[in-house]
Each structure stands twice: as structure tokens, then as C-alpha cells.
């Protein structure tokens, strides 16, 4: 279609070029409804809004998915290689995980933590499409795609670990102080939250490990050993170390509650820094050497 020079095809072609962005913006608005509902729920006013919010978020995910697939088809290679699309893909992954948890545990309570993240990521990605990208064709190899994809999956899972450890802390505080706040009353049981966090840790850590390994291999090949002094690389390794410690203390001493929540929060903070370090990193400027 794109090879044809007739005006109609050209118009359709241009339309297609802008469609992914349009779908993404529609998805952003729909996620916005989810976010609004999550905040209303904190004040116990969201019961009726919930009937609208859940289908809205579901629909948003469909638009989001269509947008990602169209982008990939348009550009011919996986567009995860620009930071904005990576953010968009991460948001979709997190939304998928949230939906999974929502359907399994019938609880919308984690939304208060998860939706701000989904919304910010999608919003940023929908507003700014002229972001940095790997321009060097040398490193657009399969390994880089694997590196990005598995790290995204790792980030999404470990974010869930963080959210569940915070929820665990909140619920256990309430049980200790013998008070219940309405939105927390709909949380799953303490032990279920604990298992949720543990399972997402168990699932997320291998993804993160594999993603980091792939990154190391690619960097080793292209840049030699100098890559190691990069802030993003260091932060990523620190984050990985924290999650490893989290898993180890869980296995050896059964750390839960306060200690585990502090560690998971620290891990999350480092993860955010590592993500933000894209802007500082030489390697991850998404520009070839």
C-alpha cells in the first residue's frame, strides 16, 4: 500500500502513520478514568464508578495493544527500542498484571498504587513521540530486543512486589490498631497479599536477571569493558542485588511485613532511578556510538 503513489493510498498511509498515536491517546483517557476511580475509592465514593472503570480500563488496554502492534507493523521492527514505546509497553504489561490480580482476588484496592504509574507512563508516551532511539543499526539485534522485553517484564513484576509489600504493611497496621478503613476492607487477606508479592518476586527476578545478562553480552560485544562505569548499569545491578537479597531473606528467615516492605520500597526507588538514568546514561542514550 505504501508503495502506491495515488492520493487515496497516500492519505490512508498518512492516516495509518498517526493512528497508533490516536489509539494511545484514547487509551490514556480511558486509563485516566481508572485512575479517577482509584482515587474516588479511597474516599469510598467509587462503588458505582467501578462499574464504569473496569470496562473502561479493559477497553483502554485493547486500544493500547492495537497502538503497539500498529507501531511495530509500521516501523517494521520492534519499536520497543525508543524509550517512549518502552514506557508504553511497560504500562500495558503493568495493566495486564493488575487485571490478572483483579480477576483472581476480586480486589480493586491495589489500583490506588498501580494506576498512577500506568497513567504517567502512558501519558508520557502519548504526548511525546520524538524521543531518543537506538539509531545505530549495528545494535538493533535480537539480543537488544530480548534485553528490553525481559527487563520490561521484570520491572512490571517487581513493581507488583513493591505494591503488595506496601499493601501488606497497610493491612497489618490496620489489624494491629484494630481499625478498618473502608477501602482496605476490600483488600485480600494478609497472607494472600504476601503470596502475591512473593510470587511476583519469584517470577520477576528471572526476567530481570535474563534481561541484564543479555544487556551485558551486547554491551561487552559493542563497547568492551568500559560500559560498566555507566550510572544506569550500576543502578540496575544495585536493583538486581536488592531483589536478590529480598528473595534470600524470604527463604532463609521468612522476612515479611515491615522489613520486607522497606527493602522492596528501596528496590523500587532504585528501579525508578535506573529507569530515569536513561537520561544520564551514555550507553542508553539510544544513540549509537
Amino acid at each position, binding site marked *: 500500500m505504501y508503495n502506491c503513489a495515488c492520493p487515496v493510498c497516500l492519505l490512508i498511509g498518512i492516516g495509518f502513520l498517526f493512528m497508533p498515536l490516536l489509539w494511545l491517546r484514547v487509551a490514556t483517557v480511558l486509563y485516566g478514568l481508572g485512575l479517577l476511580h482509584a482515587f474516588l475509592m479511597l474516599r469510598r465514593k467509587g462503588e458505582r464508578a467501578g462499574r464504569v472503570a473496569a470496562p473502561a480500563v479493559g477497553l483502554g488496554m485493547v486500544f493500547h495493544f492495537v497502538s503497539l502492534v500498529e507501531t511495530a507493523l509500521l516501523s517494521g521492527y520492534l519499536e520497543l527500542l525508543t524509550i517512549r514505546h518502552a514506557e508504553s509497553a511497560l504500562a500495558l504489561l503493568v495493566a495486564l498484571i493488575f487485571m490478572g490480580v483483579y480477576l483472581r482476588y476480586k480486589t480493586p484496592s491495589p489500583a490506588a498504587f498501580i494506576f498512577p504509574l500506568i497513567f504517567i507512563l502512558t501519558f508520557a508516551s502519548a504526548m511525546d513521540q520524538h524521543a531518543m532511539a537506538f539509531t545505530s543499526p549495528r545494535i538493533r539485534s535480537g539480543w537488544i530486543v530480548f534485553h528490553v522485553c525481559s527487563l520490561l517484564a521484570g520491572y512490571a513484576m517487581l513493581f507488583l512486589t513493591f505494591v503488595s509489600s506496601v499493601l501488606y504493611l497497610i493491612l*497489618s497496621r490496620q489489624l*494491629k490498631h484494630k481499625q478498618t478503613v473502608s477501602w482496605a476492607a476490600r483488600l485480600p487477606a494478609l497472607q494472600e497479599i504476601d503470596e502475591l508479592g512473593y510470587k511476583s518476586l519469584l517470577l520477576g527476578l528471572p526476567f530481570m536477571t535474563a534481561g541484564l545478562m543479555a544487556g551485558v553480552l551486547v554491551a561487552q560485544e559493542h563497547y568492551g569493558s568500559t560500559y560498566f562505569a555507566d550510572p544506569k548499569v550500576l543502578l540496575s545491578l544495585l536493583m538486581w542485588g536488592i531483589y536478590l537479597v529480598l528473595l534470600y531473606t524470604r527463604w532463609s528467615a521468612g522476612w515479611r511485613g515491615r522489613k520486607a516492605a522497606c527493602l522492596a520500597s528501596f528496590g523500587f526507588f532504585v528501579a525508578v532511578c535506573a529507569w530515569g538514568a536513561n537520561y544520564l546514561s551514555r550507553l542508553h542514550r539510544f544513540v549509537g556510538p
Partner: protein
Amino acid sequence: MNFFVLGVNHKTAPVEVRERFAIPEVRLPEALGKLTSMDGIEEGMIVSTCNRVEIFAHSQNGDCDLRKFVREYFGFRAGEYEPYIFEHEQLEAVAHIFRVASSLDSMVVGESQILGQVKDAYATARAVGAVTSQLDQLLTRAFAVAKKVRNETTIAVSPVSIASVAAELAEKIFGSLAGKSVYLVGAGNTCELAARHLIAHGAKKIFVCNRTPERAVALANKFEGEAISFERLYDTVPRADIVISSTGAPHTIFRKEHGEKFLHLRKNRPMFFIDLAVPRDIDPGLNDLDGVFVYNIDDLQQVAQSHLGERRKEAARAELLVKEEVRKFEQRAQNAEVVPTIVSLQQHLETLRQSELERMRSRLGDLTPEQEMAVEALTRGIINKIMHTPITTLKSVAHDPESNVVIDVVRKLFNLCRKVC
């Protein structure tokens, strides 16, 4: 719609009076037989529980003396127990049965037992033929209202007894209680009751420890559990997820240092301590440990109280629902009376027209088909004109509270019988 209810309940009479009115289940059919054999009473139903004895009746002509039934059946003197008896008629009786079935009239608002009891009373009355049409409709409606109240309000959601609050909290901590173990320290009644609730929610293994070994064994046997000797009191704790303590010890049995040891042995898996003893068995400092939750009797009571408060709030919403349902019921009943009146009015006038035509036929002689049609049209036109105003009036008052008056007037003016003839 001529419904009546008379009786005593926990709001009007103390237990000494209520027990004088109580009718055992086996004697209900006989009592219902006596009730429906009384003058003016077509249908009847008796709800007799520990909190209420209430006699419901339907009377076609509205002439129904339930006091007489009470006097004759129980053998009371005239006026005896009069201050304790309540009575409702018509719509008030309808509202009353709706409220009772929805558990709004119960001592613990929202409890679920009463609906079952009313259903039983209804089944008994139906079986002996005491409930046939009108009361049947009323009760069917009452059950639907009760269901609606349960579904649309949260009146029956949170538990309000100490034992059930404990079970609810345990579920909030452990999720499903399936496979969880419970350790009873001391063998008091409340302890046993709480254990029963936990088992009903799925708890599997029960340990019992008591200073008197015989009592421990006896209680353990009841739950197919394991009796623990008093010397091994502390050793068993790490094996239990939930510990319920109610000993008569003058000092605390479980202190913070014990808790730390338990947690270490359990690899920090959460523990739930329920302290039912006064003076307390469990040091409140235990609650500060990460993963240990201690609730004493006051804490449980407080949760129960707050649930009760929530129920009361919900009850106000439920009352509005019931009010609306009473209004709908009334409307339906009025519609049900207006339609038969219109039908019998039409039938009545049509019969008159036919018989008058028959009477005049010999005098009219032979008529041509055109003349025949003209006479038909003339007579039909007259009765339609006569019926027009009464029918439109009946239709327009169908939803008014005074529709009964109009219906009666129309029936009297045209000499119509009560039912469709």
C-alpha cells in the same frame, strides 16, 4: 386487602410473658385449625419463636377478632397481658411482616435466622391449608422483599458476635482457614464457641491444653483434636496459626519474649492470638511484633459494636426499601380490586340489556336485519353511556388510597357481588 396481625415480641413483652404465648411446633397445625375456624377469618399463619409469637390473619369482610382467638386458645382472662400485646391492621400489618422477614424487627438487626423461621411458619400453615390465596401472596412478597433487602443493603454482611468476629479476623489474616491449626489454651465455653466458628470456616487441626488434663482430653475429643499436657504448653504454640487463650491465670502466660521465639521457629509466618481471659493471658506487647496480631475480649467487642453500628445505618436504608415495597403492594392490591369491579359492572349491564331485549322481542314483532341492527346499536349505546363515567372514575382512582370507597359505592349502586360472578 384485610390483613391483621396480633401478638407479642421482644419489643413489647419480657420473656416471662412471651413464653406464656409460645406455641410448640407440634401444636401449630391444631392452633391454625382453630384460628381459621373462627368467624370472619379465612386465612391464618402463626410465627412462634423465642423472640416473638405473632398471629397473622386475612379476613374478607374485615371482621376479625384475633384477641378472642388468643383468649380462647390460651385460656387467658379478658384483658390479661393486654399491655404486652401489639396489633396492626391493613397496610401496617403488611409493613410489619415485611420488616419481620427482612430481619429489621429482630433483636440483632440483620440476623438471618428469622427469615427461615417465617418460611417454616408459612410452610406449616400452607400444609394445613390455613394459607391459600391472600396471605400466600403477602408472604411470597415478604420473602422477595427480604431477599431484596439482603442484596441491596449490607445489613447482614459483618458479623456481630464475638466468636464470629474472631473467625472473620482470622480470615482477614490467613485468607482461607482451610488447613489452619487452632490452639485452645484453657477450656472455657467462649473458647469452645470460637473454635467451633473457626472449624466451620475450615480450620483443621485443633490442639487443647488445660491445667486439668481430663478437661483437655474431653474437649479435644469433641473436635477430634490433640490434648496437650500443661508442661508442654509453650512447645505446641509454634505449630498453631491461631491461639485462643482463656485460662484463669492471675498473670500473663504469653509474653513478648515468647512471641519472638515463636516467630523465629515459625519463620515469621503470621500468628493470631485471641485473648478471651480476664485478667488477660497475653501480654499486649506481643502485638508490637511484626506478624503477630493480638485481640483481647474488648477489641473483639469493639469490632462487633462497630459492625452493629454499621448495621443500624444500613437498617435505615432498608426501612426506606420496605416502605417503597409496601406502597407497591398496596397499589397492586388496589389494581387487583378495580379490574374485577369493572368486569362485573360490564357483565351486569350486558345481562340486563339481553334480558330486556328478550322481553321486548314479542312486542317488536318481525324486524328487518337493518332494524335488528339499529335496536342492537341503540341498547348497546345506552349501556355504554351509562358505564362510561363509573369506569373512568374507577380507573382514575385505582392508585388512590380512597379507591376502596369508590369501589364500594359502585358495587352498592349497581348491586354487584364481591367477586366476578
